[in-house]
């Protein structure tokens, strides 16, 4: 059970967007921005507030890649695997991070909830390929070694 504060915050978010179906995506985006994931209870709550079927809300939330029902780590690392990054060998960076963090394609978040590792199709920073982002901050011209070093820094921080 989520505590009441979650529902209060959600009410606040709903109020800022209005009670229309078109507001569903912006509302759940704001919830996710607040908690770094979308608690399923809140999705049901939003659906009832907007008078839309829970199934419909669920279908929307699962369609878009950005929404996650699983809590994410403190640092969300996104390794870009767009074309430019890919041809400049971004896969080796991803592999290195998987091994540094003990993660895999199936397991995206570390047990201590420090790191979530994801790939992203393109961050639009192709001129600086290969890139990765940590909580939206862009790190340009990465190498496997630089990525490993970054993890060490973040762990120390």
């Amino acid at each position, binding site marked *: 059970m989520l505590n009441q504060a979650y529902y209060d915050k959600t009410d606040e978010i709903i109020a800022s967007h209005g009670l229309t*179906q078109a507001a569903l995506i912006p509302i759940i*985006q704001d919830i996710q921005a607040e908690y770094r994931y979308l608690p399923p209870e809140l999705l049901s709550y939003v659906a009832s507030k907007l008078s839309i079927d829970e199934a419909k809300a669920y279908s929307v939330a699962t369609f878009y890649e950005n929404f996650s029902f699983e809590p994410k780590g403190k640092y969300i690392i996104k390794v870009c695997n767009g*074309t430019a990054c890919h*041809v400049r060998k971004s896969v080796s960076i991803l592999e290195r991070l998987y091994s540094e963090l003990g993660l895999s394609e199936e397991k995206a978040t570390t047990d201590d909830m420090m790191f979530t590792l994801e790939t*992203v*199709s*393109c961050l639009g920073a192709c001129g600086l*390929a290969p890139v990765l982002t940590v909580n939206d901050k862009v790190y340009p011209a990465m190498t496997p070694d630089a990525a490993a070093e970054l993890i060490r820094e973040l762990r120390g921080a």
Partner: protein
Amino acid sequence: MMKKIENREVLEQIRQTSREQMNKSKCRVLICAGTGCLSGGSGAIYDRMCELVGEHPDVEVHFGPEIAHGDGEIGVKKSGCHGFCEMGPLMRIEPQGILYTKVKLEDCEEIFHRTIEKGEPIRHLLFKRDGIEYQRQEEIPFYKKQTRNVLKNCGHIDAEHIEEYLSIGGYEALEKALFDMKPEEVVSEISESNLRGRGGGGFPTGYKWSQVAGQKEKIRYVVCNGDEGDPGAFMDRSIMEGDPHKMIEGIMIAAYAVGAREGYIYVRAEYPLAISRLKRAIEQAEECGLLGEHILGTDFSFHLHINKGAGAFVCGEGSALTASIEGSRGMPRVKPPRTVEQGLFGKPTVLNNVETFANVPMIITEGAQWFKGIGPEKSPGTKAFALTGSVNHTGLIEVPMGTTLREVIYDIGGGIKGDGEFKAVQIGGPSGGCLITPHLDVNLDFDSLKKMGAMIGSGGLVVMDDSTCMVEVARFFMNFTQNESCGKCVPCREGTKRMLEILERIVEGKGKPEDLDLLEELATTITETALCGLGKSAALPVMSTLKLFRDEYVEHVVDKKCASHNCSALRRFIISPERCKGCSKCARNCPADAISGRIKEPYVIDNDKCIKCGACESACAFGAIHIEG
């Protein structure tokens, strides 16, 4: 806070004052604050420059983003993307037009004392190529060969202040449309200009607008597609970040032309900076009355909203995009009815992309004839390209339509990076194809590329050298498309999955010769039967590489080899007996126990056990291990 602009005269007055204030500053320091340079630390450089100006009260200055528009003599500004991303962080100093590249925090002091105070250029920060040092930005080959119309202001104005845009004639086109032209005249001017959609399709913009304008339904919408999802493309991002008002002005002109009162900009979530700059631009325009009710005292009222995408590539497709704004799953629907008839909320909708809208103000100001004078008649104007991959100068460029690939890659891009040789350029992202050496002199425009089996797409140009495996590239794009397939229609959902499986099999060395025929058959079926543009073009990267690099496919399938060593499963590691000292380090590092031997005698790899991880190669201190072939 700016006062409300109630009519045409006040707008001109404000423009005049902004211009005078701009001209007053003796020296302007423009620090690139695009996504690229910010990641290189340009934010700290900006702060340091402001600090330096503040520390020297003897040099009479007033500056800073808030008061930059006061009567200061040195204005330090955060500009939009200059495009030369690889050389960032970039700093432009006016009036000299000096461009400093790869600026570091510790360079700031020197820049302040030498260039700002004394006007001297600092040599080690200037761009150099082939032994030539370039003092002025405009002389650098990367810029010299470009025609920057759409991107003209990017890097030259502070994107966060509407006054800067006004001072260089911003919203003049809107003014002209509102006061001197009827809506139908605006539509016919755009039709006359032959402007074609920059999002990839190349559909005539004027025709689209006239269809919306001619609908019975009076509630209409204008939607700007900023869901630039093609991997390897970032033109629209740079426009939204670097010159948001130009695009907004274009959207407003479209709204006036088709009689819309509401507009939406759909921006992908991966562009947080673009979203915040657009929000700011809209707020400023609302504050001074350029957006809202009775704009400039006329009957034209218009409201603009921003919608943030949620990570679905297919939302770049028109009907999926409008479904997403409506709060549904972003899935394309069967057409007709087309978006111009029943688009957003079931109403007639103009849907154009960012770059298309950014072209509109210039066409209204300069006229359709001027626009037609640039590039080929059937596809006139300029096109912005994101030049990336194995090329020396990556970045954002803009050239007239019809420029050849050779000029783009060699003159502007400075040729192939390192010792590699040009192999191919991938154009148009996951919906596009490849061009190879014989195509270097092909004109880059909608019609010429279509003939080559490629397309301009949104404008991503990814240059590949001979270290790239084309089969792997095809697999990469198919993996992308398969991931992004929304699952609504069978050909795309199932077909791309099967194609991906075959390609994966091939790169793993398990392909069969008949797989190539099967790929072609599937490709044809998907192209002919898929519901939307994503599916219809999903097979293009495979078809294009199969046609141009069939040998490579055959090599993978028959010889089980990958000449560029990209496909790890096809690598064969061998230990050279001459170089091996028999230290056993490789054997100890091998996770698969595939290496055996006796101390001080050459070791050997059992390729049946080898998992091709390469751990031995990096462990060997004598360079004795390498990939065969």
